């Protein structure tokens, strides 16, 4: 059992508030991912949870008990650091057994637990090596193994994959997902990579500038972003965000004038003259024979499984469109684009969502 509860948590570094009141409940066995741009305070918050960073304000509860002032090792949480932070002078086995040794666990039991973890992570052949003689991926697994051996109430990961190359990152990501399935323990995982967040999380917490922007399952965030920030952050390639103004409304549908002059109708009553932002996912845009948004193709990226085209429609940003891989669009071509189905999001001037696709 491990429920983590954050109540109005704050962190102030010499007069600068970097965590500005975070409320969040993490359920038992849940895999929660903190995602957000660099410097938004994800690591700081994770370190406050771990006990490595003092909590400036608010309450942090583990299973209903306030632990603000409990030292890190007494919280029963294990952390996997971005730098792995292995003890360079100890072997893999000693690294993994270190916490147990400090806790006074007898040697036979220590060896047993290290062996079990090592088997799970395919480290059993490396137990006598020093970290300097391991590859990046192996070090990463030792760092995870060191956490597993302790049988913690919850695992904390701080950007554990960011020092690995792309191929290894995907592989390790899958292993971490499998690990969560096997161990069935609570995990908090920090990353700035929204793909990692989408693939791993039961629930994603999107941070920006020390505050939560939105909490939800990957698909909730994808389909119903609460605001412009989440809309722009989740999804790859990024959602097209185009400034628009309401031209007319008949009580059921409204017609918008997009920046650049194209017209776009949405199934919602709006006040003519209202300024807003429309959000269109690249994968929800199709090429049509006529009408819609007209634009000249500027860049084409053939990725094999799909083709991404960037077209100038007169707006500040080019329109990103995801097309089938066999699409034969060419640079300089003039095309018409329309949204497939009712798949636009609308945001008011303050950036809050006022309409989500009815998907």
């Amino acid at each position: 059992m491990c429920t983590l509860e954050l109540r109005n948590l704050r962190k102030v570094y010499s007069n600068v508030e970097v965590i500005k009141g975070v409320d969040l409940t993490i359920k038992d066995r849940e895999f929660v991912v903190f995602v957000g741009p660099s410097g938004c305070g994800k690591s700081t918050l994770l370190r406050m949870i771990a006990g490595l960073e003092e909590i400036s304000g608010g309450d942090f509860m583990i299973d209903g008990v306030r632990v603000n002032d409990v030292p890190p090792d007494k919280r029963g949480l294990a952390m996997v650091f971005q730098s792995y932070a292995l003890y360079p002078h100890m072997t893999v086995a000693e690294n993994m057994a270190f916490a147990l040794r400090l806790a006074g666990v007898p040697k036979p039991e220590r060896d047993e637990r290290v062996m079990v973890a090592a088997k799970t992570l395919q480290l059993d052949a490396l137990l006598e090596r020093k970290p300097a003689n391991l590859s990046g991926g192996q070090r990463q697994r030792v760092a995870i193994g060191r956490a597993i051996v302790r049988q913690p109430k919850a695992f904390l990961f701080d950007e554990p994959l960011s020092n690995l190359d792309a191929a290894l990152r995907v592989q390790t990501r899958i292993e971490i997902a499998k690990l969560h399935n096997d161990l069935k323990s609570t995990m908090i995982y920090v990353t700035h990579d929204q793909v990692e967040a989408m693939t791993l999380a039961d629930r994603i917490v999107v941070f920006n500038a020390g505050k939560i922007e939105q909490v939800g399952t990957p698909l909730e965030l994808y389909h119903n972003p609460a605001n412009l920030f989440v809309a722009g952050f989740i999804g790859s390639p990024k959602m097209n965000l185009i400034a628009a103004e309401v031209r007319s409304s008949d009580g059921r549908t409204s017609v918008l004038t997009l920046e650049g002059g194209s017209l776009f109708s949405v199934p919602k009553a709006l006040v003519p003259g209202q300024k807003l932002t429309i959000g269109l996912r690249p994968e929800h845009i199709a090429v049509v024979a006529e009408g819609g948004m007209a634009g000249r193709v500027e860049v084409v990226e053939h990725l094999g499984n799909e083709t991404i085209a960037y077209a100038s429609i007169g707006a500040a940003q080019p329109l990103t469109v995801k097309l089938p891989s066999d699409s034969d669009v060419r640079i300089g071509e003039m095309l018409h684009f329309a949204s497939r189905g009712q798949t636009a999001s609308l945001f008011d001037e303050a950036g809050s969502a006022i309409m989500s696709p009815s998907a």
Partner: protein
Amino acid sequence: MRSSPLQKFIVAVLGWTVALLMFFPVAWMVLTSFKTEIDAVHSPPLLVFHPTLANFTHVIYLGNYLGALTNSVAISLGSTVLGLLIAMPAAYAMAFFPNRWTKDLLLWMLSTKMMPAVGVLMPIYLLCQRSGLLDTLSGLILVMMLSNLPIIVWMLYTFFKEVPGDIIEASRMDGAGVLAQLRVVLLPLAGPGIASTALLSIILSWNEAFWSINLTSVNAAPLTAFIATFSAPEGLFWAKLSAASTLAVAPILIFGWMTQRQLVRGLTFGAVK
């Protein structure tokens, strides 16, 4: 950056010049210690002379060389061990839990070394006198430790800074208290640095003269005070003084020579691997 043969040559010449300049007084001292008092003050200075061991026998039999040697060893080791015991936790706290005052504190500590020691001679002397520490080993160990403490803390701080903070934090998560962190993580990782610091502290204490001469007379006099007893206001004493000095620096020279690799690493503050 690659250097040309000419640059290498110039650097080598400069290096040798500096080394010879620094070595000359020591060499002259050793040379003088084997001369008679008359030869020692001969003008022009003699390079060729009949060597004699008379000065050494004189110094060893009339002075208390062994006693002073024992005191020097006790004071150097004692002040170093005590200094490390105090400086390690201090440097640990400053390296891994810095706050907005850490940098100022470090500078302030070093600034105490910029003040001439005479400035506090009176208060320290009186403090030692009142607490019965004058001319005692413990008194000198204490004063020597205090005078080297800023340098020890600085050096340890620099070495501890090189240990990644993540590793210390990982050990905290693993349940290591402060002592366990020092013993199981910091000591092995910063071991060479700690050794260099200890070596430097031993050498500084060994060569320290000001406090040794002012705070001791007979019982706790180390080698530096022993040398001073051979400088007389009148008469010829240069050869004997040189013999005493040679005897005083010989142990630390040998010690320094044996540990020079550690020392160089320590004095360059880890800049050279």
